[in-house]
């Protein structure tokens, strides 16, 4: 890409640098949150319960007197971790299924298509709820449930890209020079599928975070006292009507900003990587 093209893109989408900064902050909090947090995120101190934001407690304290700023900071790791695990799992399995379906076509394609249709036949959040309920209420099952409901999107993106590329000239050339099918698929076709896949993944991260936090908001997955943004909002919900807004507000804001960051990042990446999609 030429430099002036990059300049043009940044001018068109001035929020992308902002998203990059937010992303850096988020990753930093996830990696070092427990080291830099000013208070112990688990230490309750009933004397200081439900304190409004102050210089000591930047985001105030919750009903047990725990420092909300520290908990929000440490919670970044949980929220980011679950979403990342779910997206990676969904992308890995979805790519494999989509590539196989698109490349071999026929009955394989039909079977895999049927599988994605079944997942898509449910409202996705309800399906995630049902899966967590069925597999058991644990963090890893939240990851599995998120991965399952994200998977169809990857299958579809990869399938359609591969199905188009299957007939491309360079694939024919690779075939004529004696490459076998799996080699053609993974070494010759897949590199071209990566850009839309990466875009899809970054757009998917925000949605996965929302999803995981929503599940823990209704009591599935992470359990208290683990600092996780969804649970913290659920904890704070009862104090909203008595005016202690900060208990629910800051974790909710953190979640919103994190999702915003990934959405903006996804849009920016799409502009750079996948110009076909650009409006």
């Amino acid at each position, binding site marked *: 890409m030429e430099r002036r093209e990059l300049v043009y893109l940044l001018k068109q989408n001035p929020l992308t640098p902002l998203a990059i900064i937010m992303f850096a902050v988020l990753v930093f909090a996830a990696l070092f949150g427990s080291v830099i947090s000013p208070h112990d995120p688990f230490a309750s101190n009933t004397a200081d319960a439900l304190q409004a934001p102050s210089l000591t407690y930047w985001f105030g304290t919750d009903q047990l007197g725990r420092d909300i700023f520290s908990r929000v900071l440490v919670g970044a790791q949980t929220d980011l971790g679950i979403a990342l695990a779910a997206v990676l799992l969904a992308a890995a399995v979805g790519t494999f299924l989509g590539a196989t379906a698109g490349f071999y076509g026929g009955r394989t394609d039909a079977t895999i298509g049927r599988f994605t*249709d079944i997942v898509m036949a449910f409202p996705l959040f309800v399906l995630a709820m049902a899966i967590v309920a069925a597999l058991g209420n644990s963090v890893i099952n939240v990851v599995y449930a998120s991965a399952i409901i994200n998977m169809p999107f990857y299958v579809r993106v990869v399938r359609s890209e591969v199905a188009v590329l299957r007939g491309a000239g360079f694939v024919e050339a690779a075939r004529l020079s004696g490459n076998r099918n799996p080699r053609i698929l993974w070494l010759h076709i897949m590199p071209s599928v990566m850009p839309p896949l990466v875009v899809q993944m970054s757009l998917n991260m925000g949605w996965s975070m929302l999803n995981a936090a929503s599940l823990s908001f209704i009591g599935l997955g992470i359990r208290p006292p683990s600092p996780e943004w969804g649970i913290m909002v659920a904890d704070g919900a009862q104090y909203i009507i008595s005016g202690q807004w900060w208990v629910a507000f800051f974790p909710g804001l953190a979640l919103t900003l994190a999702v915003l960051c990934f959405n903006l990042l996804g849009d920016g990446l799409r502009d750079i990587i996948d110009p076909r999609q650009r409006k």
Partner: protein
Amino acid sequence: MNTRIFSTIGSRLLGALPSLAAVIVVTFVIMRLLPGDPAAFFAGPAASAEAVEQIREQLGLNRSLPVQFWDYLGDLAQGDFGQSFTTGQPVAADLVSRLPASLELTIVALLIAVVLGLPLGVLSATRPNSWVDQVTRLVTTTGTCLPTFFTGLVLIYVFYYLLGWSPAPLGRLDLMYSPPPEVTGFYTIDAVLAGDWEVFRSALAQLILPAVTLGFFALAPLARMTRAGLLGVLSSDYVRTARACGLSSRVVLTRYALKNTLVPILNTMGMVFSYLLGINVLVEKVFAWPGVGSYALEALVASDYAPVQGFVLAIAVLYVLLNLSVDIACGLVDRRLAR
């Protein structure tokens, strides 16, 4: 032409059958996977091993899976979704009594989203980079990243706690009033039918915040898709043709551009409705709204799985029917899709 429409509807109905079958099979499998032994649960902690075994036999849990599946289908055919321990009622009856609350909320939310989202999308597509476009961009960007449960809490804090404009976020009606005589199950409509304006006002006041919460979430994808779809259509060859023929801006926008954007908009509406069916669970929890979502949630927390299963099935069936109507509507707008 009418026979064509009917054959379209017929083929779509047939096409929906596999989804329906899949939904039933998956809910059955999920129910089988549920942790714990329903027989032991039924028998209670003090029951002897024989008593548990007897209940297992009664429930048919010792039969082979295909037979159990067959029984399950038989139960479903009779409208038997099992029994809820928490309410002591048949799940089907609970769902029927609570579904109107969820539907009223979802439909009003969708209405809000459509009434605001479509004009926003149209205005921003016809005036790219104007201030309307910037507002739309802001609304769609924040709409997609605000968690609904968080939006709901913020609205409650501002409009109930700070301003005092809204009633307490507790259910569908102020405790002072009793529900209007049931006709549709939608309190607002039933109150109007009964001519009880006080109840109507109370029902509406209770409905506004949760509906706005849900509607704001649904607004973003609708406005975004309308804008993107319309922008695409406005730069199409046939809109250029219409302009080159001197057709008025209104005709170009409605007959040529908007009508061609209708298919993606309808599809997005279907998708948004399905989001809302899921997200309902969250909003119903925040606003103590007595719909099917909060019903399933209470049951889930109490490890009472028959209602959860009934809820998943009911919502999934609703979703299949919804997709069916979206498909049919799209086929009517664009005959190419009806073939």
